């Protein structure tokens, strides 16, 4: 249970004179939901962007399954099996759900139709999309051929999460997945996050939503002033303690590592 899947050591990222990440460490273990919290400007987004390949760090290293990796783009991270669900969802609204699920990873027809005429296997992609939705227990989408712009915010989030779960072989990272959702929709997404964890893929959850964090997280990574202040277990601390550590009102606990 303690094998580390994704790890970062001494990450530094500067933007001009501003140091967003100042020697941050990070580790994500197999089969867990790790929440990453921090005040605005604490540098958690920059850290996450390093992990998802969106940003190249100035110093430090990222290790996947113990091996150093150097992501130059989100595409590199995707090839390594790390999928990210962005806060402003990465979707093409005029295209349908199945098309969005397979965007950038389309399946072509077998034989000369696919290799010569580059014809897409629309049927296969739709079938796999349906299969993925069923596997995740998603029942809120009526039809896989609906355009995304006809969906509600929660449904769009569901599609984005399903896509990440479908292709994230190693890690799924979610940036504020419940920020724009109502109570009921949030609950659906949190259930989905648990189900992804239960399939064996560890999830990194960046969130300001403390009740959500305490509901689903196995461990909480508290980010402060550009680095990791500590990692705690939700069962060991009260919500206001965690917020206190996050804002600097309370010192991080002495035994900083939750094991």
């Amino acid at each position, binding site marked *: 249970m303690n094998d580390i899947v994704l790890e970062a050591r001494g990450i530094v990222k500067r933007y001009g004179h501003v140091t967003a990440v100042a020697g941050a460490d990070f580790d994500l273990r197999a089969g867990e939901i790790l929440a990453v919290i921090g005040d605005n400007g604490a540098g958690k987004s920059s850290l996450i962007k390093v992990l998802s390949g969106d940003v190249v760090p100035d110093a430090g290293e990222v290790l996947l399954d113990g091996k150093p990796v150097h992501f130059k783009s989100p595409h590199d991270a995707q090839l390594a099996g790390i999928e990210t669900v962005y806060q402003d969802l990465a979707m093409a609204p005029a295209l349908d759900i199945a098309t969005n699920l397979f965007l950038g990873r389309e399946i072509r027809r077998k034989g000369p139709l696919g290799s010569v005429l*580059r014809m897409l296997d629309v049927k296969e992609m739709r079938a796999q999309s349906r299969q993925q939705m069923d596997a995740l*227990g998603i029942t809120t989408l009526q039809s896989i051929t609906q355009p995304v*712009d006809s969906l509600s915010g929660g449904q769009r989030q569901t599609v984005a999460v399903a896509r990440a779960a479908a292709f994230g072989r190693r890690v799924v990272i979610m940036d504020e997945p419940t920020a724009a959702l109502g109570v009921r929709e949030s609950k659906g997404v949190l259930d989905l996050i648990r189900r992804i964890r239960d399939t064996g893929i560890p999830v990194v959850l960046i969130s300001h939503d403390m009740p959500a964090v305490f509901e689903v997280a196995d461990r909480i990574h508290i980010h402060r002033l550009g680095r990791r202040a500590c990692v705690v277990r939700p069962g060991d601390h009260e919500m206001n303690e965690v917020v206190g550590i996050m804002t600097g009102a309370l010192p991080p606990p002495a035994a900083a590592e939750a094991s």
Partner: protein
Amino acid sequence: MSESVQTAGAKAAGVPDTSGTRAVTVVDRVFRNPVLGPLAALVLACVVFSLLTDNFFSVNNFSLILQQSVVVGTLALGQTIIILTGGIDLANGAIMVLGTLVIAKIAADSLNLQLPALFVGLLVCAALGAVSGLIVSRLGLPPFIVTLGLLTILQAASRLYTKETVVVEPGPLTFLSSGTYLFGYFRITLGVVVVLLSVAVLHYALTRTAWGRHVYAVGNNELAAKRTGINTKRVLMSVYVLAGVLYALAALQAFGRSPATSPNAFPTANLDTITAVVIGGTSLFGGRGTVLGSYLGALIVLVLQSGLTQAGIDPLYQNIVTGILVIAAVALDTVTRKKAR
């Protein structure tokens, strides 16, 4: 696809959430079949003019309209794929005209030079497309400004290159003008066949290949496309170069219509293509539209011109009607987009 744990509870607990899904309305159906609108407009215009005038409904007239559609129709295909990515091309007429001039000048001396000349013209048009594509995709400049600059440069460059009218000899360059009579009396030229084939091939590429979906995705949400792993710069580049190739094809179509060309040829071609694209239901905001619609849009403009001429109406009114149609089409697009939000 990942192996997943399917819990019975998850399925039972899930209640279909229809709160966020709108009922499918008539507007949605038109929206989902984007070709339906322009097709209906085309048929309606044909019916109206057939009833109102004596000469509109004739095999000869329909044949003529199809032949008139080849140049703007081909240019509009390039315009469509650029607009689908959220861009616009103000220089496509100028690129094509320079292409015809280069071809005609090189081929002036000998019939044997016609095919090499065509090849050089193709390279020139593709290279000019590549220039726009590079500036738009690498430097991130707005396509409107880039192609406006290119238009100004090319108009001057064409006149510096030659100020006279150049004529090509009948030969390989004019073979698109050759035709045959279908069913004994419906004249159809090779140019018409080629433009219809171009529409079909591009329609296939846009709707049935990954490249096509990436074109739509870039126009929908470029950042999102990039994040799903699509090389958006390469998609943009491919679109502008392909548009350049289509402009070269339009140059060849132009020789099929008339062997003579000059720097002053096709002064309204560029705006005509934007008109065709917009009337054809493609959104100027990118990400929505079809090449089939654009070709129908080009036909609609020609049908209006033909019909109003047959009805004996001052040609200037044709432009007024076309202008109203453009604004109406954009208004419809804006309304549909707002509904879709």
